[in-house]
């Protein structure tokens, strides 16, 4: 009896030991060569968030937006297919580090704090952000400095360029962060925050839609934040490739043309309902 039971216990321990040992693969990223493995696989996996008009789902469920145009052209130039992996903001960096996708192209602003953890490419976009204030809570202001105060509550989307801009330029204001832009707007409409900050031209359109609740105190935009692709650390070849791709496509006007299409024009308005 005793022998059998001990053997069962030993067997269970053995199986677990075996399982765990088998689960440990050799380090793969030590000598990673991202570009080669993308070309070999024939597919580039791109992590994207969810943010109009950077990248979002059209009313037929397709993934569309500025990032999609950028990544599609990038993949075309590499001669591979592109595969988008929509991911919530909280999961983006872990999934990148775990190798779930090759690169994050999702309107990510460069900040030194973040750069300690991931590599950023040369910026491929610079977004302007604008502030829309609540008529009820903060009427008749005409300067951004009025909002740089401890008593002011400003709403923005967590991880967005707007949140980065508020932290950089209105450091004294209390920044509250939500997961989606609709929440940010509703928060100000409901009178729970003094202002919202979002990338142009949306704040202007919101103010036009809800003139009794929102107004634009300052027409000029915030100093721009710089957006870049994010990569795992330790692969200079990939960084070089992406940097130069961006430089080329700044020079040939592709990025600017796409930017104007998504951020200035309204030709894509019928991708979303109403």
């Amino acid at each position, binding site marked *: 009896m005793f022998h059998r039971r001990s053997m069962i216990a030993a067997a269970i321990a053995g199986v677990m030991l075996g399982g765990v040992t088998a*689960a440990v693969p050799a380090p*793969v990223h030590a000598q990673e060569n991202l570009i080669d493995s993308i070309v070999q696989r024939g597919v580039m996996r791109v992590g994207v968030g969810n943010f109009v008009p950077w990248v979002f789902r059209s*009313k037929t469920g397709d993934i569309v937006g500025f990032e999609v145009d950028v990544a599609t052209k990038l993949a075309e130039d590499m001669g591979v297919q592109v595969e988008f992996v929509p*991911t919530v903001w909280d999961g983006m960096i*872990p999934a990148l580090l775990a190798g779930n996708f090759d690169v994050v192209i999702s309107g990510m602003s460069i900040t030194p704090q973040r750069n300690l953890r991931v590599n950023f490419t040369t910026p491929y976009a610079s977004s302007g952000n604008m502030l829309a204030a609540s008529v009820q809570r903060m009427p008749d202001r005409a300067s951004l400095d009025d909002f740089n105060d401890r008593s002011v509550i400003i709403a923005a989307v967590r991880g967005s360029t707007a949140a980065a801009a508020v932290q950089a330029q209105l450091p004294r204001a209390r920044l509250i962060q939500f997961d*989606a*832009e*609709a929440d940010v707007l509703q928060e100000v409409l409901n009178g729970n925050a003094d202002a919202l900050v979002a990338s142009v031209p949306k704040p202007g359109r919101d103010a036009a839609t*809800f003139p009794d609740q929102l107004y634009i105190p300052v027409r000029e935009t915030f100093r721009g934040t710089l957006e870049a692709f994010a990569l795992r650390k330790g692969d200079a070849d990939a960084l070089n490739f992406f940097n130069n791709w961006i430089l080329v496509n700044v020079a040939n006007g592709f990025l600017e043309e796409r930017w104007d299409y998504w951020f200035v024009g309204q030709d894509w308005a019928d991708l979303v309902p109403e």
Partner: protein
Amino acid sequence: MFENPTQRRLGWLDVVLICVLLLGVAWIIYRVETRLVYNWNWGMIPGYFWFLDPITGQWRSNMLLQGLLTTIRMTIWASIIALIVGTLMAIARISPLPSVAWLARTYVELVRNLPPLVFIFIFFFFLSTPISNQLGLADWARALEGTQRSIVTFLFGPPNLFANFITGTICLALFEAAYVTEIIRAGIQNVGRGQWEASTALGLNRWRTLRLVILPQAIRRILPPLTGQMISLIKDSSIVSLISVQELTFTGQQISVATRRVFEVWLTVAALYFVLCFSLSIVSRRLEARFRRADR
């Protein structure tokens, strides 16, 4: 507890409650009209279930329906895995070998006390992703063609998210299995000691006692709370959106971002969850009633 609870006549309490309810509803409607700044537009919702493709002229399913299907698929697979793991862990929990019992106990306590998000991070990024990369799950699914591809799509959803779906499902299953373990353990321990002793006296060994005597009796007590746990599983399934599994909550979020129709989208999503969960809850109550009758 006091009087016959099936009485149908309205008492004073009923009248008071009805008045309070009516007043409350009237007040809320009044305040909605005067206070809430929101333009309702329910017209866009049906298009997110199905829409007529203008190019092919065929009906296509859209994000809400796909999200709902993913949630259902994940619920079924995760429930099966959770049941198996939970049963094994429950048997380990009552094992006479202390080390086995301790290990099972550690698993249960860890899962129950850790925030679900942290559990998912540890499991997904430190254990399952290295393993699935090693096995090449993602590349295998991507390379599938023809019938194999349609079978995998039917069972597990889009092949390009196959690896995420599998790991997300296992993760969810292991999370719920901790609760299933406790339900099954309680069920087993509720069966009287006399049954164990009688079986031992008849010369049955521990395993056969469990299989032939204890489990068949325990199952009546286990089934109702187990369906309750399945309802929790459906609701908890929204946490795997963190790892790119596009289930109902995730697609709901995406639609609400694209359309900025917060209330319409979330109320629809809530209704879908309610239909799923409430039907299970009815099944659970039927089972409970049947077993109670059988017990008599």
